[in-house]
């Protein structure tokens, strides 16, 4: 279990009153076996925060507990031993170009009390897991980005860590490769019970693998919760912005704001956003309410996401009819949804 308590990290830039507060008063608890996402725009402090977990950045104040051990209180030597049990992968892979794939994966085992054969079988086992058994003699420069990240993952797992920190691990990869790497991370999580902390600026990444997520802005964690809760009911404006980037709903809302006529809307129409979770059957309620209240309801946008195996739907619908019935229909509509938001009245 990883526990961050009131972690702050301030960088002194030298100039007076010009210190940079990269991380401010962050307290997080990450349970064993979780895939925990930390999302934020660049400069939000998420990279600094993840570096505070293995003390690559020493927090200015606060404590970092991993399995009850406060890393900030360890000696340099004890810290190095603790770090061997915390794997880390990076955006730019950070492999050693002068070493082959095999030697890169074997690096963390240098100096370990293992025979040459034991090391060899360990490295080959790791390469097998990441699907690169045939590349042991290749140099990093001969590999694609996705393959490099696989080597980096194998290297990070060499000392059988319980935790894997991923610092923008998929940000330099194309969408297909990103998906493959995320799939591998999910497998490792399931197979080895690995706790994964994943830093990213892409909501799509969080959506695909994380069980819980924290949203960072200006060094603060502004929102935190299960992926389902955060997606279905975002509290902070920044969280909504992130979610919009993955649902295409942003484009629809822009269209509504700029050119409602193009969508064939008439004066008096009410445009409503409707969110619902898996067990509620949205289609049936649309036609039922339409009939009951004598109101035309048309769906102009629809999207369904799978979050931790539960479907989550978003629709934009237009109510057309007399003021009174529309009001009543809206009230009835609200009862069937997780959330209903009137976007605009034309």
């Amino acid at each position, binding site marked *: 279990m990883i526990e961050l308590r009131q972690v702050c990290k301030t960088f002194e830039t030298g100039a007076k009153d010009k210190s940079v507060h990269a991380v401010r008063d962050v307290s997080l608890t990450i349970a064993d076996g979780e895939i925990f996402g930390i999302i934020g725009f660049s400069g939000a402090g998420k990279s600094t925060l993840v570096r505070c977990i*293995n003390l*690559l950045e020493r927090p200015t104040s606060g404590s970092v507990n991993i399995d009850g051990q406060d890393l900030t209180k360890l000696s*340099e*030597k004890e810290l*190095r*031993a*603790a*770090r*061997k049990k*915390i794997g*880390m992968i*990076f955006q*730019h892979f*950070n*492999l*050693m*170009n*002068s*070493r082959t794939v095999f030697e890169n994966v074997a*690096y*963390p085992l*240098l*100096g370990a009390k293992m025979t040459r054969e034991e090391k060899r079988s360990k490295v080959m086992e790791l390469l097998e897991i990441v699907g690169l058994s045939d590349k042991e003699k290749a*140099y990093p420069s001969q590999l694609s980005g996705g393959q490099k990240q696989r080597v*980096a993952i194998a*290297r*990070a797992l060499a*000392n059988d860590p319980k935790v894997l*920190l991923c610092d923008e691990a998929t940000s330099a990869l194309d969408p297909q490769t990103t998906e493959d790497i995320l799939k591998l991370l999910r497998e490792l999580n399931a197979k080895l019970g690995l706790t994964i902390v994943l830093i990213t600026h892409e909501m799509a990444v969080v959506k695909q693998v994380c069980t819980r997520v924290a949203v960072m802005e200006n060094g603060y964690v502004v929102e935190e919760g299960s992926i389902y809760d955060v997606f279905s009911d975002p509290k902070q404006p920044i969280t909504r912005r992130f979610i919009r980037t993955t649902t295409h709903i942003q484009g629809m809302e822009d269209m509504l704001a700029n050119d409602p006529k193009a969508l064939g809307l008439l004066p008096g129409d009410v445009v409503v956003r409707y969110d619902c979770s898996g067990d509620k059957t949205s289609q049936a309620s649309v036609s039922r309410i339409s009939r009951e209240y004598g109101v035309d309801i048309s769906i102009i946008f629809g999207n369904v996401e799978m979050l931790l195996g539960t479907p989550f739907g978003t629709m934009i619908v237009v109510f057309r009819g007399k003021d009174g019935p529309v009001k009543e229909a809206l009230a009835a509509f609200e009862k069937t949804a997780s959330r209903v938001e009137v976007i605009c009245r034309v």
Partner: protein
Amino acid sequence: MFEMLKPIAPNFVKTYPEFVKAFFDTLEMVGTAAAVSALFGIFFGVVLVVTAPGGIMENKWINAILDKVINVFRAIPFVILIALLLPLTRMVMGTAIGTKGAIFPLVVATVPFFSRQIHSALCEVDKGVIEAAQAMGSSPWEIVFRVYLREGLGGMIRGATITVVNLITLSAMAGCVGGGGLGDYAIRYGFQRKMTDVTIVTCIVLLILVTIIQSLGNVLSTKKH
């Protein structure tokens, strides 16, 4: 071959035994000075990198002092350095003249130069790789030997090549103070006795020497390490 050279370079043929001795003197001076400078240069270069701000063994004072000392020594012209070092050379080497007397000032002049070459080669090592090694629990010394000196090897060899070529140039200058070697040979016969053929042959020999060293350096530095 000698008969063939006689009409075009008569003086060179006449002084051939001197040339051979001078050639090996140059090799001795350059070889010894290079070996000693390599040790100190790598050491100081590494110290400069690891003690730099944000380095793995950050130390403001050591870094600032070493940086300044290197600059001071690099600013002194070699001919003046030889004169300045005379008493010290006599103390360390037992003599201030001849090949032996030239080696000490050569080392003093080359160490700062090579330290800078090592420094810039090691600065090229990806900071991310250093960070990865730290994250894997490597100690600072392990990072020096297993990461810096390995990842930076190509750049270090390129720096060493430049340094050795530079050493050959300096060793010729050591001839001015009775240092021996090819520079001394070319000045005594080629310049002072106006035996132009001696100067030309010496130049060609030095050119070949430099070319060989540079090619060797190029091959070694581009090899996969």
